[in-house]
């Protein structure tokens, strides 16, 4: 199809002209005062604990495991939750892949095919302790955005070294690693709504069950 502007080019020029004339008197701050906390103060151990606590408060099921236990922990979750078909991204570490369930490797599954699976297992890029948030940037172990969205259960593996303390630290880290232009998804607990009489219901359109496996660092 023909691409490009669907409107007359006048609209662009007009809006920019109006903006220029309207903003003429607006004063810009000399610089943005950044007196807020930009560097965390916690030790790694405390940071990990804070993350687990905060993610748990959003009714994510958080479990601390050793790296070699990921596959077993995931198999246990799948068995307990009745997950038979589990989607995994192509780059998911082999050691994480559980046995006892049918693994469906995402090689461009259609939305309907994804919907016919029961859960997804992914890694993440970063996590934020203060808000209990995990951050996915569609990396090899994370897969594309739809994987952690369509299936009703999501198991996400977070290693302790990926946890930062504060929200600003996460965005600085994403930019520093050149990930700012990737598709980015911040997840804080399972999907939720409070639309009816403010009573909170977990799970509307996103996964209703979020499990977070936090890997203890091997010292």
């Amino acid at each position, binding site marked *: 199809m023909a691409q490009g502007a*669907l409107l007359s080019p006048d*609209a662009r020029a007009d809006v920019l002209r109006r903006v220029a004339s309207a*903003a003429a008197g607006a004063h810009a701050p000399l610089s943005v005062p950044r007196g807020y906390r930009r560097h965390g103060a916690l030790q790694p151990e405390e940071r990990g604990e804070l993350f687990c606590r905060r993610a748990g408060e959003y009714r994510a099921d958080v479990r601390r495991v050793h790296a070699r236990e990921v596959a077993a922990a995931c198999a246990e979750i799948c068995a307990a939750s009745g997950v038979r078909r589990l989607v995994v991204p192509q780059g998911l570490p082999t050691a994480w892949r559980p046995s006892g369930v049918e693994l469906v490797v995402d090689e461009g599954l259609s939305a309907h095919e994804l919907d016919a699976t029961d859960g997804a297992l992914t890694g993440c890029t970063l996590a934020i302790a203060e808000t209990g948030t995990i951050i996915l940037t569609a990396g090899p172990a994370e897969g594309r955005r739809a994987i952690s*969205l369509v299936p009703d259960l999501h198991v996400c593996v977070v290693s302790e070294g990926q946890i930062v303390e504060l929200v*600003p630290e996460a965005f600085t880290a994403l930019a520093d690693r050149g990930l700012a232009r990737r598709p980015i998804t911040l997840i804080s607990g399972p999907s939720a*709504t409070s639309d*009816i009489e403010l009573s909170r*219901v977990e799970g509307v359109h996103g996964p209703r069950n979020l499990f977070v496996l936090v890997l203890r660092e091997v010292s």
Partner: protein
Amino acid sequence: MTTFPEAARRELANDQLRTNLRNATETIRAKRGRAVAELPDWEALRDAAKAIKEDVLANLGPYLERFEEEVTAAGGHVHWARDAAEANAVVVEVARRHDATEVVKVKSLTTDEIGLNDALAAAGIHALETDFAELILQLDGDWPSHILVPAIHRNRTEIRDLFARTIAPGITSDDPRDLAEASRAYLRERFLAARVGVSGANFGIVETGSVCVVESEGNGRMCTTLPPVLVTILGIEKLLPRFADLGVLLQVLPRSSTGERMNPYTSLWTGVTAGDGPQELHVVLLDNGRTRVLADEVGRQALHCIRCSACLNVCPVYSRTGGHAYGSVYPGPIGAILTPQLHGIEHAASLPFASSLCGACYEVCPVKIDIPRVLVHLRAKAVEATGGAGERAAMETAAWAFESPRHLSIAQRAGALLTRPFARGGSLHRLPPPLRAWSRTRDLKAPATRSFRRWWRKERS
């Protein structure tokens, strides 16, 4: 347009609305208070957020051009819309090119503002609202009463009955969990099969060309990830200069809005990513009155608004009348300053007066919009625009009375004399026209028959 006092009188008669609103505003207010108190640097975050938005407005032209450049470089298409009709035309055209008879929509105040659903309907395209509350309202032909919880004026049994009539025949439970499940089941297939998604956006990042959507339910992720084509409508003021600015805004927005440390889902995407999400992206940059607001030195700060709705929950006026009384998609204190500026003061002259100027809205605003100051500024404009002869005469009389002790004494005596026939039990409940409207909602103590100053003179003599 119905004036605010007329609409408010109608809404105040609705007991259920008032009960639900009180419950909602008090609950969210308390949650917000806890979420904010937890951060030691809340005020520093507000200062930063405000400065970021000031920076955006002062450099809006260059920022818009850079944003366009970045989106285009990442494979997206940028369209500029001077008004609602132009923005709607883009969405209609995109849907037509893909032979879509339905588009899936994320809740968006901006698309409500431009009347997108009606414009699409006129072109034979159904805009399916996918936010839980918005779906409820759409099924019932109702409209939002709160920015965050749009269907807060409806009860669970009403919603159950509505679902039984529409999307979930035979449903008997009114448990919110079962109702949410019904909406999940109804929308799932529509998400999977959708060809075109439509969204608003919370932020557009200038330096990367990214678009950011903040939500809870996952319908936003569905609409912006699954359809092969996505159209995002972005008010020109929604930009943030730097990617790092998200580190500020994504702290103040969820805590101010739902009172959560972080909302369940925040999505960012930049143009088109091969193999992930929509492969055709359109971003519509919308003016629709925003440059008019920008031109007003005092009023332009209304464009800082990040639509958190904290000002609604603390407002003594909103928490009684609800959102419908404001006659606009932007209710509450922020609506009272945004609507008259976007649409012209002559179309909403009563809104700047829908406030007691108590200042609670300013105190909670995460981007420090001085709403009371803008309200007073707009009141002056409303009086200029609508004449206000009565008020002017009253103010001139007051100015004369306070000019000298002698004038004041004459005014006091005249006031006592003139109001005496209307005093009942020491109070004035009902004054004759033209003061009747004023006295309808206020009681006034009847002026003393003898002023303090006269009494004092007598005592001392």
